[in-house]
């Protein structure tokens, strides 16, 4: 028997759907931010008074953060 160490219990694995989403999110991020897809959306021009490249990059970035937030909440709820 391995003895229980004085460390926090390892986290339980949340559901399969969560794992799929958690695996997919960085792939989505890489596709949108680090492939030539970036070029499609970053032509000169303006959206809401901001240059479109800035709007696109910061918008995608913020979107990823929101998705990551939702996933993290699910992960921590699964461990509660």
């Amino acid at each position: 028997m391995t003895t229980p160490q004085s460390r926090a219990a390892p986290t339980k694995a949340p559901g399969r759907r969560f794992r799929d989403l958690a695996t997919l999110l960085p792939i989505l991020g890489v596709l949108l931010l680090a492939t030539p897809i970036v070029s499609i959306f970053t032509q000169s021009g303006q959206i809401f008074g901001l240059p479109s490249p800035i709007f696109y990059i910061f918008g995608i970035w913020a979107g990823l953060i929101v998705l990551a937030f939702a996933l993290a909440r699910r992960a921590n709820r699964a461990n509660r």
Partner: protein
Amino acid sequence: MGSFNLLVSICLIYVLALFLIAYVAERAADRGRFNFLRSPLVYTLSISVYCTAWTYYGAVGSAARNGLEFITIYLGPTLVFIGWWWVLRKLVRIGREQRITSIADLLSSRYGKSGPLAVLVTLLAVIGTTPYIALQLQSLALSFEVFTTSGGEEAPSPTSTAFYVAVGLAVFTIVFGTRNLDANERHHGVVTAIAVEAIVKLAALLSVGIFVVWGVANGPTDIFTRMDPELLNAGEIFNKRWLTLTLLSATAILCLPRMFQVIVVENDNERNLATASWAFPLYLFLMSLFVLPIAIAGLSTLPSNANPDLFVLTVPLAQGQSTLATFAFLGGFSSATSMVIVASIALSTMMSNHIVLPLWLRVNASRNPASDDVRLLLLRSRRVSIAVVLALGFLYFQFTGGTGALASIGLIAFLGVAQVLPAMIGGLFWSSATRSAAITGICVGFAFWAYTLFLPSFGGSFILTSSTLANGPFGISGLTPHNLLNVQINDPLVHAVFWSLGMNTFVFVLVSVMTTPSAIERLQSVQFINVFGQISARRGITRSTPIEDLLVLAQRILGREEAMALFKTQAVAQDTDTPLPDPTSEFITTLEREIAGNVGAAAAHAMMGQVTGGAEISFEDMIAVADETAQIMEYSARLETQSTELAQTAEQLRTANDKLTELSKQKDTFLSQVSHELRTPMTSIRTFAEILRDSDPLEPEQLNNFASIIHDESIRLTRLLDDILDLSFMENGRVQLHMETVPLSKIIDRALTTTQAQVNDQGAKILRDADAEKMMLYTDPDRLSQVLINLVSNALKHCGADQPEIAVLSGIYGDQLIIDVADNGSGISKDDIEIIFEKFAKLSSKVTAGSAGLGLPISREIVKNLGGTLSYEGTQNGAIFRVALPIANEHQQAAQ
């Protein structure tokens, strides 16, 4: 009192406040009030040590020159963090399970606790980090200079500024960074101070940004109308450089020693990682939100010769906002100091664990590591290492400061440290990755990095001359550092990333495929790659290491109380009778891991090796690995086939139960047989004793007869008890053999003398071969003659022939000495052959009536103890018992 003195005072007050915060946090931690210190917020903020003065000031500078490109430095880490489920989660879990103390320790531990690999990564980290520390010192010196010259004062010497800052940081780091020896324990004071600094730098940058957007301009739309449209380079934002920088920054967040320190080593709850997965990208998002507006404001309001790297300070100063500028200065100060503090802690841990300690171990190889105070040595070396790291940074600044070499050093250092990446990722996911591959991959990558990027960064003044840079060494254009094999990658950074990481990965994979991992590498790779699988407990194999030695070693390194506590819990877990646990290999693994939390895997392994007798991975360990691998495979299959699994478990339980029942039955049978064997002589003794007591005077002849029966049966009883004890000793292997060299004839003589009376009784004939008996034998003569006595007396008892003949013949066959005891009886029936060697076997045949007793089982045990075998070789023409003993050549020859 000029603004310089004011600035110095503010810095001092700020630093004192940090000391205070760190102190309070340490006190709170000591009292066990961890809740806040362990919150995901503090963890996330401490990761912001990623944002150094280079990013704080340099991002605006970069934005002013290259537009959106600066964002890539933040996008890489963002992608790594939102993808935490892939890599970070595994790193953190491994870090906790294996008590990893640094990135060098991680690689060393994964690749068989390799000392050389740890040294290599440590050197790489020092080479990659020293310029970075110099960069922080430079940015501090520069920002001091900007402030004081703007106040019309004479600029302070950058050297002295950098020197005092370096000394101050060394003191802070030594005080709060080396309080705990266990590098795997959290530095609560430091981490809390870093978190506060993270808030300060974010708040400072946001304040400047808000001031620029709404104070200088009229909102976001207005500020971007002031922008030169060329700056954004719209339509061509994504290019090779964009991709390369994103990759590089993603690598940096994983490989930089200070990032590894805050993300993995200082992590004490995996759930904090889930929070950081969105909170840290959010922090980066906020840090970069106003970078472009500040750059635009600087470009549009300041003279064209103004240094864009200092816009964060100079824009508020030019607008007369000296308070805001001071705040901005504190933000930069925070960025620089937090980076230096964490980096020097990480490097000092690596240097003391992977360089100082192994050297010390080597110098004192003859001494047991348990006999010296390793703790003190480690603490001292860690403190000295911090001073050395800062001194290196200062010297580097001193020699290169003012030249252009420092400007691009941030990315250059990134790439240097990034050479660890293939070995690290390979180690986490690929079980075939080997130590040699890791070492060669890193060395090759490092060489390419040095040749294509690092050395050229000195602009021809260091090792590589300018003509080499332009035309290649000896004019060979294919070897030009910035254009190897004329690949036509114009950007030197992209070129260097391609060659160094590309060749590194290629060599790493190639060598991995060509080499085979050693046993300990396999062991570790299973532990790493399957860190989320349920690795079952190892079987407890008791090693011969005295537990006291282990305790002494543990006390020297873990400290007295912690060591005792560890040993006590382990003893309780093992359910031993003593307060100390048994030195099972499982316990040794646990202890080694605990020690690794202090000194790193390689040193811990070496120290344990010295105490446990330098035993390499044993055969049992290999079996355990195989078992574990099998169990892991079973575990993954289990998800789908749980019912099968349950059935199997039930079956295993049933088998185990059957075995226990069988054992218990055997024990019962044995006890019942012992009881029978003891009661039989006791019955005779009691009955005759009562007859003697109760009867009227008996005739002298009868009296004599009865008394001698009592006497004989008493002797039988005693012999039986002796036999039982003898057998139990033999079976437990606790028998003491008194080996000596004697002629075989002497042993046979003794056996026949003892059985002489019986031989005479039966009128038996004894056959011997005098020539064969001349040989010398290295054995325990008492025990061997006991065996022969048993065999001869059995033969006499059970032979059954009218004219009994017993032959004791010997000879050498191959490397064995054979002694046969044969008789001319009817032999032993097939049914009985199976059981004659069992204790108290009851034979079925009429001739061998009665219990065979313990003679044969004892004889067999004796021969086994002598290293040989006792078997029955008989036929219908008589029983033959064969003793086969190995011939120990050297003894034999020595005797001749």
